[in-house]
């Protein structure tokens, strides 16, 4: 263990993985004390000629585990051997390096133009295999397969499902050569790779929100110089306009059953929270106050809607039963709390809180009202939980440019997702989709 600590101590605090167009920078903000030492050996290739596919997959697995904050991954250069299957493993090679766990694997062509990826996870001290899988995959799905492997390892060793094979949606604005602005809504893997544009506009796009099945996004678009709310199918691009009233049409939030959207409308004079039944196209009003009421968020059990209101003079978080009723104030600490959303277990909220002149991401424990500030930027906003509750992704400003960052819920590991040029903002982490769980 002591040796491992030294290794971690001498590891660079910034560790960059360059692949495709995106760059992911992992910034370990505090020591990796308590992180599980794990060795992910570069996966081998069992096909004709040479191939980097195995190495690429194992690098993604290693990077996923590392950025979760729960694991300290051994650098490849420190490995004493490069086994590819249980037959090659000498457990003492890994014990001497202080490893608790070991991952080995191999990729082979499957004869149909695709690949078969095999991996095995071992407990080094017991000298036994904890799990092992064969994944059929294709060139296109290699990253996704690597994230699935990381999810399985994460779950086996922490007892909690992984959230690596999920996606994020976010908004990017870029200044074009002619001086005009282009705003895009994009979807990328949770580690920021493979970004794909789903909407582009010369007018602002805002407030993306995932449907609970991860197949649709609701968002606000100002096309034709008017704010409207759209629902778009992520995989087909088909979309429908669901709200285009006079005034604000904003802050869409899906109900957990996927049938309703909570949203902000000012059609009756000032911003209020409404619930839209998507299929029935019927609208009911949840709040009624002359103050600003906006940014609704459903509790995972569907019983409550949290929202931001300045009815007490400054923006604070309030709660109302989802079918209407008495409004209860939730936040009392500080002069500005806004943009709340629930943790998947419903026991805490993440929100934006003002500390002095700075806006920071925090977690509010709903049972004891303790507020834990997790970020240290000046203008951090739009926090969103990973579907397993382990991390929060948020928007921050670095040298005046919007970037995405993620932080573990204990605040120990913080990382930047330096995606591309342009101002990046409003990240939302997707829920699990059915395909996430199909191999388990």
């Amino acid at each position, binding site marked *: 263990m002591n040796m491992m600590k030294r290794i971690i101590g001498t590891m660079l605090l910034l560790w960059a993985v360059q692949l495709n167009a995106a760059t992911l920078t992992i910034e370990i903000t505090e020591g990796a004390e308590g992180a599980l030492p794990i060795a992910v050996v570069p996966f081998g290739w069992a096909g004709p000629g040479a191939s980097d596919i195995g190495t690429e997959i194992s690098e993604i697995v290693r990077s996923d585990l590392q950025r979760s904050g729960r694991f300290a991954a051994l650098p490849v250069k420190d490995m004493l051997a490069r086994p590819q299957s249980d037959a090659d493993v000498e457990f003492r090679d890994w014990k001497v390096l202080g490893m608790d766990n070991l991952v080995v694997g191999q990729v082979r062509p499957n004869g149909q133009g695709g690949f078969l990826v095999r991996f095995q996870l071992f407990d080094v001290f017991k000298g036994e295999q904890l799990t092992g899988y064969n994944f059929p995959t294709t060139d296109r799905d290699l990253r996704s397969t690597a994230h699935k492997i990381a999810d399985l390892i994460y779950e086996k060793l922490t007892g909690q499902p992984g959230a690596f094979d999920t996606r994020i949606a976010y908004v990017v604005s870029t200044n074009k050569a002619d001086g005009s602005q282009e705003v895009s809504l994009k979807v990328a893997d949770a580690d920021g790779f493979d970004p794909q544009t789903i909407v582009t506009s010369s007018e602002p796009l805002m407030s993306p929100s995932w449907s609970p099945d991860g197949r649709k996004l609701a968002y606000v678009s100002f096309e034709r110089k008017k704010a409207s709310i759209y629902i778009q199918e992520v995989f087909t691009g088909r979309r429908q306009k669901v709200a285009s009233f006079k*005034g*604000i049409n904003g802050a869409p939030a899906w109900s957990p059953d996927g049938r309703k959207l909570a949203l*902000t409308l000012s059609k009756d004079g000032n911003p209020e929270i409404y619930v839209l039944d998507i299929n029935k196209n019927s609208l009911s009003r949840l709040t009624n106050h002359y103050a600003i009421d*906006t940014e609704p968020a459903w509790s995972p059990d569907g019983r409550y809607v949290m929202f931001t209101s300045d009815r007490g003079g400054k923006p604070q978080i309030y709660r109302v039963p989802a079918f209407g009723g008495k409004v209860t104030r939730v936040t009392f600490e500080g002069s500005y709390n*806004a943009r709340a959303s629930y943790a998947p277990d419903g026991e805490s909220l993440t929100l934006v809180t003002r500390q002095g002149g700075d806006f920071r991401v925090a977690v509010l424990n709903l049972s004891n009202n303790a507020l834990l500030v997790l970020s240290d930027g*000046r*203008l951090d906003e*739009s926090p969103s939980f990973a579907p397993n509750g382990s991390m929060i992704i948020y928007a921050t400003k670095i040298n*005046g440019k919007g970037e995405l960052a993620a932080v573990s819920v204990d605040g120990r590991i913080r990382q930047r997702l330096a995606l591309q040029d342009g101002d990046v*903002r409003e990240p939302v982490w997707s829920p699990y989709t059915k395909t996430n769980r199909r191999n388990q």
Partner: protein
Amino acid sequence: MKLSTLKFAPVLALSLLLAGCAGMPGMSGSDTNEGAPVADAAAGDGSTDGAQTSGLSEGGAWTGSPLENPNSLLYTKVIYFDYDSDEVRADYRDAVLAHGEYLAANPAVTTTIEGHADERGSREYNIALGERRANGIKRLLMAQGAAENQIITISYGEERPAAMGSGETSWELNRRAEFVY
């Protein structure tokens, strides 16, 4: 202030005549609620005349729309606000009132008021704040006799900053409402 009032006064006076209005709302801005609403119904089809008439001041220099006359209060189309406030500051009150009078005198003219906020705080809350700013101006315009259907409001929140950069010098330029005719 006095000078600019005088310079666009002929246009305004002409418009007011066309509109059949008896009184000129208070130009000083010292008493905003006093000005009687202009009877827009009386304006009829000739209402666009006011917007297109060339203004011949005594100097005879300005011949374009009063909205483009640098010496007119109507030239001010961006109204700045204090942090987290939707109150029209004293230094912009006369300009807003002039726009109200102009709209009242020209019932066929419409304007869009775009509300904006600086980047601090959450985005949807800033949309609400920008709307409050636009609506605050709309109410002042209507108090001057502008009709509701002449005024469109839209809030862009912090989505369309006038100045990039994160600091008070940028923020104070971004907390604004803009008249778009």
